[in-house]
């Protein structure tokens, strides 16, 4: 049976799965920093890591509609797990990444039993509270985490035993970008699967989904665990490429930043977090000379403007613009 025979919804779903030319062009563009701005590869690597973190939030917020104000918990868990592994002699990056991600996933799975029971304000407060709890725990467990001084003494072995993590961030960017791309492919596959559709159903109408036989809580537990694993991988990447882990990786600030990044780019669109991370980090890098207090003034203004005028973020605005243009043409 070929796609042409299929009616409305099927065709819509098929069109969603297909790779568009602009997507392929976008991923080629991610290679440009090697040629155009070789001095900024460290920043590019930071952007790739932040984009991966935003992607993990997008999976639960943009698709399942779970608002989390404490997602940095998993980012920090992954970072500390990877950092501690290499500090105690396990310096091989790839296996370290997998182990750190698995630890974050395990904690995420345990927490998902709590998360799946709540919605709205109680959910926001519980994610916030659990994030703050973990931050305080890492702060008090100074013998393990180094407390406020951060984790020191991380020594990474070369990637695949051949590529050293250099000062310019060449290896770091290749590594982060490759992990981002692979996990992006997995996420893209996931959200276009029937499971992904069920998640969107939960986002749109959480009462109706059980009525048509979908196990809401099981779905939420699953995606929350996956999201925790991805966030843990992002944290592990940060620890491995910068060779430090600070308490900041677990902070409320980081949870809030990633939320801003995702909303700015557009939630529920996979690319929103990546676009948001590029804009946010490049702007912060450019304006880093000015007082951070005023940086947050502009972020605040931006948030207000996005909620008022661009409800679906930059990507949502662009999509609307494109749709309007197409309407005019036909």
């Amino acid at each position: 049976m070929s796609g042409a025979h299929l009616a409305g919804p099927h065709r819509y779903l098929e069109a969603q799965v297909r790779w568009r030319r602009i997507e392929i062009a976008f991923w080629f563009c991610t290679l440009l920093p090697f040629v155009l701005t070789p001095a900024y590869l460290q920043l590019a690597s930071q952007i790739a890591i932040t984009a991966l973190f935003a992607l993990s939030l997008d999976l639960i917020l943009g698709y399942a509609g779970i608002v989390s104000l404490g997602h940095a918990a998993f980012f920090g868990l992954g970072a500390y797990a990877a950092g501690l592994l290499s500090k105690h002699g396990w310096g091989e990056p790839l296996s370290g990444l997998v182990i750190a991600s698995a630890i974050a996933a395990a904690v995420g799975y345990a927490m998902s039993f709590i998360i799946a029971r709540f919605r709205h304000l109680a959910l926001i407060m519980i994610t916030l509270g659990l994030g703050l709890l973990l931050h305080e725990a890492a702060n008090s467990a100074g013998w393990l985490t180094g407390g406020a001084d951060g984790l020191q003494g991380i020594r990474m072995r070369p990637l695949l035993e051949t590529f050293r993590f250099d000062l310019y961030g060449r290896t770091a960017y290749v590594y982060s970008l490759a992990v981002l791309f692979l996990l992006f492919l997995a996420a893209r596959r996931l959200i276009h699967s029937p499971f992904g559709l069920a998640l969107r159903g939960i986002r749109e109408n959480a009462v109706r989904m059980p009525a048509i036989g979908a196990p809401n809580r099981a779905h939420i537990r699953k995606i929350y665990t996956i999201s925790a694993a991805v966030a843990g991988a992002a944290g592990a990447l940060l620890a491995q490429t910068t060779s430090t882990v600070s308490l900041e990786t677990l902070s409320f600030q980081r949870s809030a930043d990633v939320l801003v990044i995702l909303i700015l780019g557009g939630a529920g669109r996979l690319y929103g977090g990546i676009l948001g991370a590029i804009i946010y980090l490049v702007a912060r890098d450019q304006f880093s000379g000015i007082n951070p207090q005023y940086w947050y003034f502009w972020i605040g203004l931006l948030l207000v403007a996005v909620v008022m005028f661009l409800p679906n973020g930059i990507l949502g605005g662009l999509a609307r613009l494109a749709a309007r243009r197409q309407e005019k043409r036909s």
Partner: protein
Amino acid sequence: MFASLAGVLFDGFAYGMLLFLLSVGLSVTLGMMNFVNLAHCSFAMVGGYVTVTLANSFGWPFFATLPAAFLAAAAASVALERTLYRRLYRASDLDQCLFTIGIVFISVAAAAYLYGTVQQPINTPSWLRGSMQFMGMNFGAYRLFLVIIALAVTVILVLALEATRFGAQVRAAVDNQRMARGLGIDVDRVFAVTFALGGGLAGLGGALAIEIVGLDPAFAFTYLVYVLIVVAVGGLGSIGGSFVAAAVIGISDMAGKYYFPQLGAFVIYLVMVALLIWRPAGLFGKRQA
């Protein structure tokens, strides 16, 4: 041991009363319109800075600045409600959160621009500075004063809600907004007045908080977490709930800092998460937020 326990209880209770003043307005407005106003502590900050400015630059006595703080915060909140917030009543939780967080960012930056990032000093009257001896225990005069004000506010609020026509309208709107509209209550107007009252109380709380916790531009963020904890634990739209929750949170925070200083704020977050898991709608909440 007993004296120190009573002292911790008293200090914690006084601190809880401060949290109660800061959060009661948010609890009622959140219960009424389901509007997640994270910028509530920015109103408290407005009150604090009004008090500091009037007392230090214009030489007003501390007591005269308190009504001014209340009025300024009430005016600021109602202006914001009329111009911006009302457009977002039907928006999702997330949009409301983001919008009001944006307002917090802006207010923090504005406060830093106008007053700098240093702690603001305040001179309270001399008779509020000492402490009193009672049954061999020391009670800070200012904390006692704080408790008295908070109790007075609670009594006034409860009486106003239970015994006046306006209070009945507020209760009706919190319990069932659509039904209240159907009965001809102008819910939007009731809400605007309640919002102004809540903002004003936060402003009063912010002014009273300077002596205890200080005032700097980060205030709107630091206390946001505490206020949200009180509201979520107490249950939406419940004054009694906010009162009990504020007392519990204040005492457990103080006790945690006193008896387990190495744990930091761990205790208070643990109390909050445990209480919320036990009762998602809060201690006195009737429905889930």
